[in-house]
């Protein structure tokens, strides 16, 4: 285990930046944190988490896939994929780290998504434990330990120091390269910190959120639940929940007419939108209730059904704090399955 005093944290950032791009949460002018490329003067945010999740690094909101140039009767297909270079995403929370696993199960299975895979290969994740989780956090419901995030490097911020522990080959390589700015450390302080966080986790209002009623094979049980009507009645049909969600993975492929050709790109799509998965025959989900149900059934039933029981939610709480009408997966879970939580 290595450590660095927080006063000198910029030295760590500088050392990383000397060899590759470093991204970390930085406060924006509205006081909210967003992942930003580090350069001198940028300060690591004190915020618990960013408004947008770090899934952008591997699955950007828009991404060019290929280009077509048209000349007379010829169409030239241009591969726009760029060689990716190693980069570091620093300060990722345990929930968001787990979200990468969930995305991996979608994008890295056969047929592997090369756009995603390349970036995933080159990305090095430094995860940091959460000292002060929010009332909107419920990662523990999905078996995630906010005190012990598992990424290429795990980190803990104590009062004066940052402790770093490598978990993978990539992580070891990174810490090796940072030996000049860090020093050898023992685990005492980290153990203390973990205990401290564990105590807080128990006090969170959503600490006892029950997931046991959900999972694969529950489609029949929940699909026609009468509660969907009420839960979805004031849903605006906007895409906020899907776009701030670290695990939502649906995308659409579009063509952009450049005048003498086409740029084919993909962009995030939302099951909340009326034209989501629209087909030649029309739409398969015509009401907001059906679209709303799809989102939550996907996370709580369909995804676990196809992925050894793993839920498609990590309890980051972004939808809880950002939904314009304050409807979210917690309210859905409590009303559909776990009334005893109340």
């Amino acid at each position, binding site marked *: 285990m290595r450590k660095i005093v927080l006063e000198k944290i910029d030295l760590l950032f500088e050392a990383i930046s000397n060899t590759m791009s470093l991204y970390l949460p930085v406060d*924006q*002018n*509205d*006081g*909210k944190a*967003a992942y930003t490329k580090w350069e001198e003067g940028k300060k690591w945010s004190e915020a*618990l988490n960013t*408004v*947008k999740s770090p899934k952008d690094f591997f699955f950007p*909101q*828009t991404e060019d896939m290929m280009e077509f140039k048209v000349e007379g009767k010829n169409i030239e297909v241009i591969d726009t994929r760029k060689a990716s270079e190693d980069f570091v995403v620093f300060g990722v929370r345990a929930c968001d780290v787990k979200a990468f696993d969930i995305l991996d199960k979608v994008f890295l299975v056969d047929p592997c998504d090369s756009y995603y895979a390349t970036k995933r290969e080159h990305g090095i994740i430094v995860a940091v434990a959460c000292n*002060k*989780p*929010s*009332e909107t956090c419920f990662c523990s419901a999905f078996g995630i330990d906010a005190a012990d995030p598992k990424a290429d490097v795990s980190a803990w911020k104590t009062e004066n120091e940052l402790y770093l522990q490598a978990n993978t080959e990539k992580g070891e390589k990174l810490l090796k390269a940072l030996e000049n700015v860090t020093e050898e450390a023992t685990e005492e302080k980290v153990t203390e910190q973990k205990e401290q966080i564990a105590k*807080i986790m128990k*006090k*969170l*209002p*959503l600490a006892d959120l029950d997931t046991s009623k959900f999972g694969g094979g529950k489609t029949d049980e929940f699909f026609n639940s009468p509660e969907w009507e*009420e839960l979805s*009645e*004031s849903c*605006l*049909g*906007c*895409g*906020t929940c*899907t*776009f*701030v969600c670290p695990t939502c993975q649906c995308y*659409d492929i*579009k063509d*952009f007419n450049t005048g003498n050709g086409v*740029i084919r*790109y993909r*962009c*995030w*799509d*939302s099951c909340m*939108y*009326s*034209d989501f998965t629209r087909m030649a025959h029309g739409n398969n989900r015509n009401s907001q209730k059906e679209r709303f149900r799809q989102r939550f059934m996907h996370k709580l039933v369909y995804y676990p059904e196809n992925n050894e029981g793993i839920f498609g939610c990590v309890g980051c709480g972004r939808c*809880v704090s*950002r939904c*314009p*009408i*304050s*409807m979210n997966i*917690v*309210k859905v879970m*409590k009303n559909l399955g776990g009334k005893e939580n109340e």
Partner: protein
Amino acid sequence: MQKITKEMLIDKATELLNNGTVSLVLGWKKGEYDYDVTPGVFESVEELKKDFVFGDFSAANLSKYLVKKTEKLEGKILVFLKPCDTYSFNQLLTEHRFDREKVYAVGVQCDGMVDIEKVKKIAGDGILSVDCNGEDIVVKTLYNDDMTIAKADVLAERCANCKSKKHVAYDELLGESGEVIDSNRFDEVEKLEKMTADERFAFWQNELSKCIRCNACRDACPACTCEKCVFNNPNSGVENKSPANSFEEKLFHIIRAYHVAGRCTDCGECSRVCPQNIPLHLLNRKFIKDINEFYGEYQAGAEVGSRAPLVDYTLNDLEPGEVFDRGDENA
């Protein structure tokens, strides 16, 4: 001024349900915390007693829901409207978006809504309870001592710059209806006007580059009630799910601002719901300010059926050339 409590609203709704005036109630439902209130429909007194809330977090403007909720409704729906919501209500009626006969509107006195983000900035994260009691707010958190905050310090932007405490539409009032306020709501617009064109471009470039195109601004906007928005219509030529480039990023917001110009009542829902905190209301306020200056004071939704300056013609109207001549200086 008397304090309006949720019990008063529940009593009113109970009375109207029981005497058969209405069959449904459109109001606010309590959430997981004290601040995450959800708009909702209540069908019975039991439901009202269980979940109905009203307070400093009943920020959502319910008027737009009337379009959908009255569509197939037989009988009447009760809707509670804060003063600013009544302007949206009137504007929707002006545009024939719902049948007034199907609605029983109860105007509710409003003392301003609280922005939980502002509360968190002062009290910190890990909110356990927020107790709003008149002028003061008591906040309990996981990490800090209990804190008493002045409500005035955590008012939502639109409430700090409240344009009117007057209810411009209602069948019945709970509490008092106030007056139109000479607010400072154009101050921020003036700051933007004083910038050079380049500075202003940079300002909006920075703000709009944060947009994630979730469409929450559009979907919450009471002026955006098109059955099919051009941005969702594959045949419109501008349909897109996310901006393909920075030009399209701005295109969406500028087209939207133009489309609601003269119809926007400045209810502020767009900025309230934006997950990225983009001050979208400033685009609309610029239009409102210009319309006021070019064509005389006009407040959308102040009355039903008014002819908005942009869809009306008078001989005194400004010539487009005069607008153009103002150029950069006061663009």
